[in-house]
């Protein structure tokens, strides 16, 4: 086998001890999708008792590599070895048998089944009378262990759970054990829909899991999570591994530099000191349905308003209520004075039209403006798409390709382009940055500030406290109510967490 990797992996070898302790090892893995080279000969391994952090921009090849580890994709060349045994017919069932599990970025619970039934899918051993009871006990125990005070019932139907709770179930399910062993869990953006509190619970659990001699691969765009929890960090860029070293050897700046896109970080630090805009005309005045006191959300033209608090405490509900109020002509008690567009966070269920091209996915919100007489002009549609491809940097050779030819982060850019390319003066953002890499995030933050400078209003629900830096005001939500309003200068993570857990405003 290639001897080059021994040189490059030296730091890691020292860390994980002898090479024969590897749970999994890939040598020279390659994969193409059409003309796109997703993986260009990657060497990758995970030792036992090790948490490997995997970082890189969207489209760097992280997901493709993980699909190979999980057995859902077969490398075109190169080999896979599990515990130093070369696997010639590696597959999903084989990976299961060997104790390799994964939680993929695209949430995959069956929406029509209950939490317990979803658990049973992964555990054929739960059979006979009372299997539902057994599955319920299994998943509830694991949820209790990872997320104490989770408030999820095993009888809940998956589609009734918020995206954050679905993610919690999915993560907990991956750690449940019946007949197959459990050696390695791949967590692909496990905290993307979790608030800071639950994300902390999960990461603490991962540390306990690894301390028990098991292994974990952690993929996250929140670099702090990777730096703080991984033993070793592997950085990917353009389908290659560009660095692999002990986590201690990295800091935030070195990571960002290695991933590419270093200059951006300083820029945000400089620009974040945004000036309070002139107060423009009123755009939105809304009160959550369960609000009992006089607190209400008020937004003016040119303002960026943050909606904070723990995940699923009524932020999305209020955004949807505002959206519905704008669509309906009836008076609903919510004042909206301009057209509204929404950027979905839950891409698959709220945003993407899977049969359509990238250009069509952008154009749908602006059909009336794309008309030439009665008909939609393909030329204008293409112009709109091309303009936003350049402006927001959608990585594709052809905007007429299907939307699913894009990586997750680029799909999210398409949803931004749809909203920002429309005539909407008010843009609602429903935690839209889940699973988006830091480079893309910084670009979008710039864009949001630029558009706000032109008089657009943004209502921005986010589970990432860092993003609130971009906002002029922040409303903190708890149990469907606004419990605090913070100005930019009062904003700290402690303050938000304190308000989220406190009883009074």
């Amino acid at each position, binding site marked *: 086998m290639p001897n080059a990797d021994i040189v490059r992996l030296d730091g890691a070898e020292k860390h994980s001890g002898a090479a024969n302790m590897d749970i999994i090892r890939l040598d020279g893995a390659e994969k193409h999708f059409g003309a796109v080279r997703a993986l260009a000969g990657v060497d990758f391994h995970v030792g036992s008792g090790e948490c490997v952090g995997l970082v890189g921009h969207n489209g760097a090849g992280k997901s493709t590599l993980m699909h190979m580890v999980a057995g859902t994709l077969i490398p075109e060349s190169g080999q896979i070895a599990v515990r130093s045994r070369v696997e010639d017919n590696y597959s999903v069932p084989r990976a299961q048998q060997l104790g390799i599990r994964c939680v993929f970025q695209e949430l995959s619970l069956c929406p029509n089944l209950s939490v317990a039934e979803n658990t049973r899918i992964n555990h054929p051993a739960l059979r006979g009378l009372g299997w539902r009871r057994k599955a319920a006990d299994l998943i509830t125990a694991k949820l209790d262990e990872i997320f104490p005070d989770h408030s999820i019932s095993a009888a809940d139907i998956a589609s009734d759970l918020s995206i954050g709770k679905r993610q919690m179930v999915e993560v907990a399910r991956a750690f449940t054990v019946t007949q197959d062993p459990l050696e390695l869990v791949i967590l692909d953006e496990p905290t993307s829909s979790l608030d800071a509190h639950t994300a902390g619970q999960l990461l603490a659990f991962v540390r306990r899991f690894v301390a028990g001699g098991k292994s974990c691969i952690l993929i996250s765009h929140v670099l702090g999570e990777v730096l703080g929890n991984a033993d070793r960090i592997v950085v990917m860029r353009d389908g290659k591994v560009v660095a692999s070293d002990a986590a201690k050897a990295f800091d935030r700046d070195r990571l960002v530099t290695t991933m590419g896109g270093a200059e951006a970080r300083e820029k945000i630090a400089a620009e974040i000191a945004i000036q309070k805009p002139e107060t423009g005309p009123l755009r939105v005045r809304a009160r959550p349905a369960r609000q009992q006191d006089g607190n209400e959300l008020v937004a003016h033209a040119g303002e960026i308003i943050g909606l904070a608090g723990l995940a699923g405490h009524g932020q999305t509900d209020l955004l949807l209520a505002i959206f519905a109020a704008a669509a309906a002509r009836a008076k609903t008690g919510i004042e909206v004075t301009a057209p509204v*567009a929404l950027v*979905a966070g839950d891409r698959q269920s*709220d*945003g*993407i039209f899977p*049969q359509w091209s990238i250009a069509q996915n952008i154009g*749908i919100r602006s059909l009336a403006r794309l008309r030439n007489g009665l008909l939609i002009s393909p030329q204008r549609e293409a112009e709109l798409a091309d303009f936003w491809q350049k402006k927001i940097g959608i990585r594709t050779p052809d905007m007429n390709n299907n939307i699913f030819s894009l990586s997750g982060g680029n799909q999210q850019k398409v949803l931004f382009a749809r909203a920002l390319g429309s005539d909407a003066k008010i843009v609602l953002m429903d935690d839209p940055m889940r699973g988006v890499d830091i480079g893309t995030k910084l670009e979008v933050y710039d864009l949001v500030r630029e558009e706000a400078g032109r008089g657009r209003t943004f209502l921005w629900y986010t589970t990432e406290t860092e993003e609130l830096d971009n906002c002029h005001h922040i409303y903190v939500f708890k149990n469907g109510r606004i419990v605090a309003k913070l100005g930019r200068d009062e904003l700290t993570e402690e303050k938000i967490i304190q308000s989220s857990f406190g009883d009074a405003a």
Partner: protein
Amino acid sequence: MASLRLLLAKPWIWSFIGALLVWLATITFTGGYGGGGMITAALSLAVFTVIVGVGQMFVITLGPGNVDLSLPANIGLASAVAMKVMDGNDSMIAVGLLAALACGMAIGAANYLLIWALRIPPIIATLSASFIIQSIDISYGRGLQIKPPPGFASFTNWQILGIPVLAILTVLFSIGAAIALQRMIYGRSVLAIGQNIRAAWLAGVNVGRIRFLTYTLSGALGGLDGALLAGYFRGANVDIGNEYLLASIAVVVIGGTSVAGGKANVPGVWGAALFLVLLLTMLNTFGVSAGVRLLLTGLIIVGVITAAGGQTALR
């Protein structure tokens, strides 16, 4: 070569290839006799399937669960309304056609009202509506055997150089429908709703209005079809639309429209309608019994859905 490959990638091309093969098989069997007449007859009959097929296509494209099962009853009632209003009088043809259209639109609107107000699944709503419509038709058209006005009857049978005029008009209508589907806000909205109704709403599509329009359109086309059928077959009849329940759905599916919604095409409806009519002619020519004929039609539809299902799984 490249253009041929592009053509073969169209989902509707297979229905035309199927129609062509069936036609060739039949004229080989008859030794070349009656090939032209067979096409004329096929065009005349396919027209009626295409008209309701296009309406059904828009409904099915709205997404899983959306289907208009009230078309046969609708056709039956509209045929009676048209004949009664025309009353065998040439000067009343236009009024009769409008009455049939209005009757169909009212049925379509009522269907959507049931779906929207009572939140019944469309399949149940349109099916139960069809029982009500049928009862109205029976009491309204009791003992009625009004002949169509002579001018209307000859119009529905009018041919130029062996091509039925009605078929030419229906081709023009189909072109309009195809443009509406691909290039108008209405069609785009239908396609968006069919792919993901929630995403469509969040992207600013007026979901309620588009669904209302679609069911009304399907109803209107059913009404028009009823009037034309009564003209072609010389009289209204409660059962005149019966075969269009299966046929309207079959042509949509065989034509390459996705049963899962969000993906549709109009040419396929034509190809599939011709295919079904020619298939029937072929089986008749071969002297196959009615039972085997139905069996084969059913098997072909199952086969096409299976083949089409395999395609979507590849995505």
